[in-house]
């Protein structure tokens, strides 16, 4: 067991986070008990950040007490691990457009007070800006055609200086017929106009036709 990345532990090839709410499972994840501590194994098939770690992600920008803006939080699978990492002193502002997904998130947010559920459209930051604050980390996972533009706009408004921004890009939602590699290159170029790209990963077999970028605002 090693803690090489802030708040993320390694058990063999698996990654895990130290549960903030022991004995309460969010998505039927596997758990490991070490003494009094319960570690929640991060399922790479259910979480793109989990997959990115398996594919060699080294820096997430997340730390204990960090403030995070999560666009496309859905029902809180990935967010629950981020919630473990940032802990009770951190906060995750979770924006989700689907009423159905956020309904499940509300139950998670009740147990994990550091998750703030916001039903809104990430494309329109003016609709939720007055409810949130600037953050250390921006995380985005939304399957939209203009996902890079949404990412850039939100980073400009809400990301603190020096903060990291992570994005999972789904090639199929940008163009179903084009070669994913071409799309990733084209999206990378868009991101490079505003960001320095720190890591550039392909999520491989965990999440087909997905790329994962970690960026820092220029």
């Amino acid at each position, binding site marked *: 067991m090693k803690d090489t990345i802030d708040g993320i532990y390694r058990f063999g090839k698996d990654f895990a986070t130290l549960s903030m709410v022991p004995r309460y499972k969010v998505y039927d994840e596997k758990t490991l008990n070490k003494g009094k501590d319960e570690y929640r194994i991060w399922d790479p098939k259910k979480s793109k950040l989990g997959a990115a770690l398996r594919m060699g992600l080294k820096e997430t920008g997340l730390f204990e007490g960090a403030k995070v803006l999560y666009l496309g939080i859905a029902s809180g699978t990935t967010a629950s691990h981020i919630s473990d990492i940032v802990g009770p002193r951190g906060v995750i502002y979770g924006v989700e457009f689907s009423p159905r997904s956020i309904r499940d998130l509300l139950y998670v947010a009740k147990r994990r007070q550091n998750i703030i559920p916001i039903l809104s459209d990430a494309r329109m930051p003016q609709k939720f800006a007055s409810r949130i604050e600037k953050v250390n980390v921006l995380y985005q996972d939304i399957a939209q055609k203009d996902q890079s533009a949404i990412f850039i706009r939100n980073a400009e*408004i809400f990301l603190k200086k020096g903060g990291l921004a992570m994005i999972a890009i789904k090639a199929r939602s940008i163009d179903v017929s084009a070669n994913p590699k071409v799309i990733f290159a084209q999206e990378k170029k868009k991101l490079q106009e505003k960001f320095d790209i720190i890591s550039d990963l392909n999520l491989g077999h965990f999440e087909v036709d997905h790329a994962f970028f970690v960026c820092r605002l220029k």
Partner: protein
Amino acid sequence: MYAYISLSPIGLFAHDANGKQLASIIFKLDDAKDRFINASSSNLTDDDKELIKKLDKKDNKVIFEIQKDGYTSEFPNISGDTIRNNLSKLAISTGFVKDAGEYYTFINELNSEITKTSIKASSTEDRLLVHAVSTIDELESTANTLSIRLKEWYGLYYPELLETVRSNEKLVFILANNPKREDLSGNSGLSMGGDYSVADIIQFQNYAILIDSIYNQMKALETYVETKATQIMPNATRIISPTLASRLLADAGSLEKLAKMPSSTIQVMGAEKALFRHIMGQGPSPKHGLIFQAPVINQSKKNERGKRSRMLASTLSIAFRMDYFNKKLSGGDLLKEKFDKKIENLKG
């Protein structure tokens, strides 16, 4: 001089162009939820008015960050940008809360409440229809699956009946009422089936009763969908059948989505496989999807179907928009008239 105004969960703030705070109104923790929700609306609230009053008369031009009727707004503005920098510290220094823990508990509760209200508002009538249509499909496939077993089972006892009654629904109905060989008409001479006891036969019957109730539930839902669809989509149902209209609705997910769709999408909805095959460059473009079920298309000549599908889809897209944005608009009749005329012209 301009005064920039922004809203936050702890109160309202006004800053000048350099980010210097000009005035503020800090909510009390007890009434913050209501005042925040109130101030989020596009109307000018009492808190807004009071903040404007607090500003120096020279700062007569105010710019809000959120939209307010009759005022200019700019997003993001300097005021919002400044307070969002460190809201939790600001909440403590203004005396709104004692510590960060108290602040985030408040923020969690506030947002959970606003989100719950929005979820409630998203449960509209059309969503009921979407599920009703899907339920009908699932019941149908379930009834068919269960009927296969019933047929095999009953075939041990009286296989001759299966030969005469081909429809699952009819067979289920008969067996639910009386499965006894000797009571059924068309029973002539020796049966290939085994001779089973009453206790055995009653098992077929109970199973048939179960499947029959599925068919009954399906019929009840179909009637419900028809009435509901006519209510929710009065204009679209003038042009196509309520069943087809609700199928399109179920495929789109909501009336809002359907209303915002281009007619080309409505035209090929339900033919996604063919459409993507075409986009990948391996097939002709589909002419019609679900709308093929409309008699105006499936009962027409093959070479006219493409044109008719386009016309129907474009008429429907207008009808769905009427239904979503203004149900009372009685444009459905006019649309139908125009559509019929177009189809008529096509023939000539």
